[in-house]
């Protein structure tokens, strides 16, 4: 049973900031509620105050800044909105692909991307892909504004770097550079993904100049496998292909999955290997077809 709470429905970001300053840990932010309300129902969370963001002006916007080549996704933008946006499809097709597989359409109609990132559920889709995009998170409080690199935003299981009095206002996603091939893959035998990977390579003069490999669901937070990325820089497609088994094995070694009802640690590392191998193959194939 959900305990009664005082509902606040502020209409500005400033008002949200004031409420957060005032109530601190006695208040929780509500956007779509697909995670929070479920926790409340299961008795795993409760709060005497709820700050409903849905009436706050300015959070329901999604804009592509052509000049800076950045997509700004407001905190109230739902997964479904992103999934169906022609602008996102044109400039960020992987984002559309990822959103299409997320949970189910009912959750996507209501749940927000920002809410998903703030909840920091380890078995989630968006974080992994957005890391590969080098996304940033903008948050506000009465003390001002902070801009986080997504990599710094995730701290631990269900834990972000947000202070108690901060609210996320925008997610900023930079378009992938030209000559960059990328894929997003996930392995999801049950309800939530067991492992996912976002891998991409940017080419110049026939060699890899920009390598991004993000793994998710296999640790306390999604992460870029920096060691592997560095090891592939300056290599040709052929060289990368020849090393892909080593790379996959290295990525599997560097992740930290937990055993659960769906797989042992050893099996999950195997799945990571499979995803990384598959991802690399697709990226290299795409590069070939793009000449």
């Amino acid at each position: 049973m959900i305990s009664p709470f005082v509902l606040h429905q502020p209409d500005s970001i400033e008002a949200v900031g004031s409420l957060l300053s005032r109530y601190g840990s006695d208040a929780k932010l509500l956007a779509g509620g697909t995670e929070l309300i479920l926790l409340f129902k299961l008795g795993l969370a409760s709060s005497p105050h709820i700050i409903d963001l849905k009436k706050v002006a300015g959070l329901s916007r999604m804009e592509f800044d052509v000049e800076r080549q950045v997509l700004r996704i407001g905190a109230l933008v739902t997964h479904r909105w992103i999934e169906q946006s022609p602008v996102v499809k044109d400039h960020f097709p992987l984002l559309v692909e990822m959103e299409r597989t997320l949970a189910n359409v009912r959750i996507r109609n209501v749940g927000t991307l920002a809410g998903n990132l703030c909840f920091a559920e380890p078995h989630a889709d968006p974080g992994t892909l957005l890391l590969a995009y080098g996304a940033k998170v903008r948050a506000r409080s009465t003390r001002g504004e902070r801009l986080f690199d997504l990599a710094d935003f995730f701290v631990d299981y269900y834990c972000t770097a947000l202070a108690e009095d901060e609210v996320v206002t925008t997610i900023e996603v930079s378009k992938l550079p030209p000559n960059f091939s990328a894929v997003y893959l996930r392995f999801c035998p049950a309800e939530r993904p067991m492992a996912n990977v976002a891998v991409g390579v940017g080419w110049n003069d026939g060699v890899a100049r920009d390598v991004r490999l993000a793994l998710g669901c296999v640790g306390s937070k999604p992460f870029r496998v920096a060691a592997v990325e560095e090891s592939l820089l300056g290599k040709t497609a052929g060289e990368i292909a020849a090393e892909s088994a080593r790379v996959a094995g290295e990525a599997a070694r560097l992740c930290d999955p937990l055993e659960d009802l769906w797989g042992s640690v050893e099996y999950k590392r195997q799945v990571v290997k499979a995803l990384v191998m598959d991802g690399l193959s697709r990226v290299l194939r795409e590069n070939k077809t793009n000449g």
Partner: protein
Amino acid sequence: MSTVIGENVPRVDGQEKVTGRALYTGDLKLAGMVQGKVLRCPYAHARIRRIDARKAETLPGVVAVLTRDNLKVATPYIGAMIKDQPVIALEKARYAGDVVAAVAALDDAVAEEALKAIEVDYEELPAVMSVDDALSPTAPLIHERIERSRPPAYGRGASYIAHEHSNICHHFHYERGDVNEGFRQSDLVFEDEFVYPTAQHYPMEPTISVASYEGDSVTVWSPSQAPFATRQEISRVFGMPLSRIRVIVPHVGGGYGGSKGALTSILAVALSRHVRRPVRVAFSADENFKTICQPQIKVVIKTGVKKDGTFVARQSRVYLNAGAYVYSTPSVAEKAGYRSHGPYHIPYVLTDSYAVYTNTVPAGAFRGFGGHQAAFAYESQADIIAHRLAMDPVELRRRNLLGRGEEYAAGDTPIDCDLKGMLEELAVAIEWDKKEEPPKDPRFKRGKGIACAVKDGGGSGKSASATVRIMSDGSAVLSTGSVEIGQGVRTTMLQITAEELTLPTDRVEVAALDTHTTPFDHSTNASSATVVMGQAVQRAAQDARQQLLSAAASTLSVPVEEVQLREGRIIVKEKGWSLPEIMRLCFANVGGEVVGRGSFNQIRDENVPLGQRSPFWEVGFGGAEVEVDEWTGAIRILKYVSVTDAGKMIHPVHCRGQDEGAAMFGIGLSLFEELLYEDGKLANPNLIDYRLPRFRDLPHSFASRIREDAGGPGPYGAKGVGEGGILGVAPAVCNAVFNATGVRIRQVPLKGERVWRALGQPAVKTPVRQ
């Protein structure tokens, strides 16, 4: 002349269901109704030293708390074959989830608070979670005393063996000839072990019952597949005459054999009798998981064959994990045992089937009822045999399948359909002989597999009655105790009634199911209704028709042989009367009714091993084409074909719905459904960790082929359909996996890790340049 048999008439409950008007038990609101909730033991096995509900009782909004201390009943035990489950735990709790107290409160929130305020002093006892552990000589006895409600009445070839001081609660023994002689005659002997998981029925409607005790009587609303058995249990437990108990079955949101409402109905009556107000006891989804499950079954199967593949002897040992309370698991044990030699000619058979108590969620009936678990064993082994003999698996089946008219077991109903024809149809449908292109990427392997299974259908010891009343305006009302759980049975019964009375279907109504006014029916299960209740309904309609003809003959002063009923009219030579006209003539006053009665009872037959002839043979032949991902062990079913026989399809769309639905159940059980335990407790009592089949799991090529071999004992040659589809799925899929990879997996579900390890943990490799 027109017929409605074989017509896809609009289902009687269709409009209600698609508009949301259909009322299920949880939709009912009675004035003054309070909410019932239960407290569950968190330990797998524990003595209850003390239970104190005083604090809970005093909470505002709490109407009553029931524990062993204040539960006043004639007998506290319920159960099917064995009355082993106390309504509320007495001296001990036997599984994590066992009910130790019940509260009634003004709303759910208060009820939850009350549960938290009940103090229980548990003394944890050693627990056994597996059959092996329960059978060990040092295992704790889960039930100190086993009281059977009736001794099993087997016939020739079968016997019941009692085990004292054991967790074995049922042992079914069945033999045909001397199996050791059979093995001596065999050229090769195969011995294998197979395991089929425990699973949750997960009907979309969670278990719930409402009871209203007033004066000396009680009315109960419950989504039960056996409302008359529910009435019987209430009568026994509370010492009330049957005539004072009324069980009404609203719409039911799925059954699949899960004994829905068996426990909640008793708890609701107990609470309502105590508080003298209507009480609703509604289990949440996770509580459903903790109430009943499918027994996990291990089959140790030993088969002797000749070099040419002819089956000679089969010995099976079947072990069922019955959980803490047996429900119908002893019956499942019998059936799994009886079905373990499959649809084949095998001269020598020996089967021992054991239902064993453990400290896990009680197991019971589940769609398939031992048939699919037995089939998993014998059809997987059949392919092992075929492979060893370098024989085509289809050819091996061809050599051994029973033909139409041949005996399955001495004394029992012979095979009533063309199994060999079905095998050929299956092979063609799955394109068995077609050489498929292997996938370009060597990481993926494809293969095909088939399986041939049957189960004796129609149930045992069943008794069904029905009445058909022809009203003064010529319309008719059918009263039948068959429960509509989605299968379309009430529509089928309406069709039979309309057909026999030559009425259009919109002139026939099926009355609501109410044990006060509906004649007795044993239960809706075992794919039996079309055959068992169908014959009762047909006879009732024919009885009504005959009475009408006699009344007309008498009124018109003609011999009854000259009176006909055609297209809803009484015809004598060239003259015709509409039914309203005839009714007016026959019954001088306005009004009057013709009441037709019919019944069907299965009679005991000493010559049959199970003590009764099987009404019919339900067929479940399956063919699967799968793709295996060697890197992750993930399995995709690309194509699935189910072949079965309905005898005669009274409603083809409903038959198809049943067969496809059953096959999807089989797919879930084969690929991802299993209940898991950790620290003595269910680890996955929810849909996040217990995966049900979704749209994405529907194979892109999925077909149910339902034949009409006209051999059914039901009306118009019909048989039951509803469980066949589940029988062949697991072995067909595992046989396909073997065909694809050369690896034999002997346990389902085929979750990724299980498959990957069985394959030898293939490494992720750089693919060879294509």
